[in-house]
């Protein structure tokens, strides 16, 4: 198929298919995470109105890069 030996086709279609399934399963199993979003949004709203600095970071701050 496609001019390629069968083993090759099986691998280069099969393994990505496994990843797609893994992704879908992960998204499905983690659907309960929305609760956390709500909690955070509420906490954020309260922080904006009331006391500041509840989420202060505990460390030094200069020039971090990070990914990209």
């Amino acid at each position, binding site marked *: 198929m496609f*001019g390629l030996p069968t083993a*090759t086709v099986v691998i280069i279609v099969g393994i990505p298919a496994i990843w797609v399934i893994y992704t879908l399963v*992960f998204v499905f199993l983690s659907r309960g995470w929305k609760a956390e979003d709500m909690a955070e949004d*509420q*906490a954020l709203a309260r922080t904006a109105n009331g006391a500041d600095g509840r*989420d202060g970071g505990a460390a030094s701050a200069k020039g971090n*890069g*990070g990914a990209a």
Partner: protein
Amino acid sequence: MNIETWFLVIYFLAMAGIGVWTLKIGSKGSEGYLLGGRSLGAAVTALRLQSSSMSGYMFLGAGSLAYTKGYFSLWYAMGDIGGGVLNLSILGRRMRKLSQILGSLTSIEYLEHRYPSKWIRAIAAPVALFCIFFYVMSQFIAGGRGLEMVTGIPYAWALLIAVGVIVFYTFLGGYLAVAYTDFVQAIIMLIGMVWILIGCLQAVGGWTAGNETVGQINPNLLTMWGPDGIESVQWGVIVGAVLVFSIGYMGWPHVNVSHMAMKRPSVARRASLYATGFNLLFIPAPYIVGIMALILLPTLDNPELAVFEVADTVLPNFAVGIVMAGIMAAIMSTADALLLQSGTIASQDLFQRFFKKDMSDQQSVWVSRFTVLVLAIIGYFVAVNDPPAVAEVVIFSTTVLGAAFVPVYIAAAWWKKANVPGAIWSMIAGTVSSVVWQLTGLVDVTGVDPMGVGIVCSTLALILVSLATQRSHPVPAHVLEAMKETDKIGAIPAHMLTGQNDSLAGQVPKDV
């Protein structure tokens, strides 16, 4: 200057413009600018993850591996496709939450907060710097070669320009600027790569016809076992190839920082969809192009230029210019972010932590800049004199980073018994075993890849040492509390969790 070069210049100016614009809008929170204000949504997170891991490797390394080894090189792609979702699903939410509770702002600081001990930083920072240096150098080489090919400037000068632009870009921006330009670049790289692939397949008469032609050159190139056929296949290398870009990826401190910057913990879910989708389209492409290059460019001197040369051959001029610009800019922004990360590691995680505790703001900045310059200079000289292959360097640095850091990052979020001695020995075991395995050439003797060896050693070290020292070095209470907090989704009814103040986790009395 030819058309391609003009496009390059225009593109760089546009990217610089975005960089300056994000500087101006700045950020609002107190943790603000360090992590882009934890404001990155799903699409940006996912694409940043992807573009931060690719760039130079994809355009030079993947193409060269494919040109020389045929479909065997796709084993790397097989791992790579899943790397994003694996990283997001295993580390994403928990690392984001744990880092927020512990108050960590960099991924190495996160390790020290989770495994409280100065030795953690004393080991992690140099290892990370070492690997980042190699990875940056690979981007320098890629940038220099690409620039040379597009503009015709001799390699040494092209490299100097590339390094100069990268360093300038580094001094200009910070995390947020880098985040947004990366997003734009990821889109351009995707479009460009797909365009090259389509053009290439058209030129060889279709995928099937192309495969058949390649098969006539050497039928083994069509198999997944290597150009010498199944008799000489090294299973250990195959396993390593799959592992390195799927699991190894979780050890990159500069990638894991993205998790910490997610807008909300559950961004990981949508980001994983974007990541897998992007990867399916993007990752296999340079490998296929590299293979087909055997037909279009049978006498290629430098296999690393396979993808570039194919682009030059099959695309109309203006398209070549835009795509090349996208590739170059992507390479440069990856290098820039890595350099920025190394500057921070040197100034915060090493210098300020161990030498000058009361280091002022100014001094911190100067240490950062100095580090960036030193790395750039050393990198330039190594890259200009006898540049190693981009693929080799990237795979080596990812291998060491993966072996050293993957177990400690995963255990940080998932295993409550992982303690300081376990983490220390894990990082040491992973680094030493993978480096020694690679440098002493044991790969060829045993057919086992350094990645596999490294991961096994570091994982065993973590487990055995942690269990053996549970009594003498227990995990601190506030860390356990923080971890229990990250467990909580599902265990506690959502209505109770709404409005909870996570930072109180550090104030729970011990006997409660």
